């Protein structure tokens, strides 16, 4: 539809009004209007640049934190515990029961400071390593190892616990009192 489609433009007064509206000259804009528009645009652009810089800095910070956390995670492998039975110069398979006189080599991997404990029947700590300086303990890289000679029947379980909290001897109580992460092995039976 164009203005010429308006039926009332047949009316000369209507047509004259339309023509006057079309031909009416523009008002001169104030002389300082254009410079003020451009100055406002420059201010808006500068604000946008500052906002982008702030957003960029925030993104960079978040990325740095994320990278740090990933690196930390890679540098700090999960806690791993285990034990192996030795009889003479050979291994005792997990399905075979241990006997008095067999040696249990317990080990735990944890980059941070932690304590390796061997519980007997979950009610008594019969061996512990806080560092390689403890009797029967040694370190191989991130791994702390200890060797214990089985002297009683029952079940043995290895625990690697963050920190060096005092032990009550009772596994359940000790884990309940733990303030940091810990890892518990499957029990190993001895006859």
């Amino acid at each position: 539809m164009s203005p010429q489609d308006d039926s009332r433009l047949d009316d000369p007064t209507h047509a004259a009004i339309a023509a006057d509206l079309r031909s009416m000259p523009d008002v001169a804009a104030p002389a300082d209007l254009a410079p003020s528009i451009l100055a406002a645009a420059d201010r808006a652009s500068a604000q946008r640049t500052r906002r982008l810089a702030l957003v960029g800095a925030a993104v960079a910070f978040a990325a740095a934190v994320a990278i740090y956390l990933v690196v930390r995670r890679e540098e700090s492998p999960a806690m791993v515990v285990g034990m192996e039975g030795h009889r003479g110069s050979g291994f005792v398979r997990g399905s075979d029961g241990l006997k008095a006189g067999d040696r249990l080599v317990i080990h735990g991997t944890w980059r941070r400071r932690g304590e390796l404990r061997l519980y007997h029947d979950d009610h008594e700590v019969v061996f512990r390593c806080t560092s390689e300086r403890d009797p029967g303990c040694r370190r191989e890289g991130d791994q702390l190892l200890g060797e214990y000679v089985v002297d009683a029947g029952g079940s043995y379980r290895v625990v690697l616990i963050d920190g060096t909290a005092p032990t009550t001897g009772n596994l359940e109580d000790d884990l309940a009192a733990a303030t940091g992460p810990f890892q518990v092995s499957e029990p190993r039976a001895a006859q």
Partner: protein
Amino acid sequence: MSVGDDEIGQLITAGRVREALEALVKEHDAAVYTRCLRIVRDRDIAREVTQQTFLGALRDLGRFERRSSYKTWLLGIATHRSIDAMRAAQRQKIHTADVEQGAENEQADGPDPHATAEQRERWEALLACLDGVSGETVAALLLRYRDELSYEEMSIVLGEKPGTLQARVARAIPVLRECMSGKGFTS
């Protein structure tokens, strides 16, 4: 589309947006300011809305698809923003006093040195008559007869139905006709 539009388009394509804005302002500031002044009838508000129009256009320059000229696009933005500003001013109840002030200023600005004395008198009479209708009606009349938009195109600019706008224009013409007759202009 004018040569100016092509040059502005090339500046935008080249990423020289600041220069494009400068060209748009230089080319169309008077038309945009006039459109704002006709609707809001207050110099300070018209000035503010003109600035908002160009800053808004600057944000949207990259998205403008050039289905119309830059001038038509800018006048559409100016019209829409002027109506918003006028309504805001009315809400603040400061409009009535400014209308009288604005109307006087408009007429003082009107003369075109190349126009005949009779034509200038007709324009001044028409401007005075436009003060008797609402800003929304002035906006519709200008979009229709000055920018030569269809009612469908006007509905996009103003966010109203084409039939509503057509009725608004139709109702305004007899009012203006009577006003012009009262001032001695019959056709």
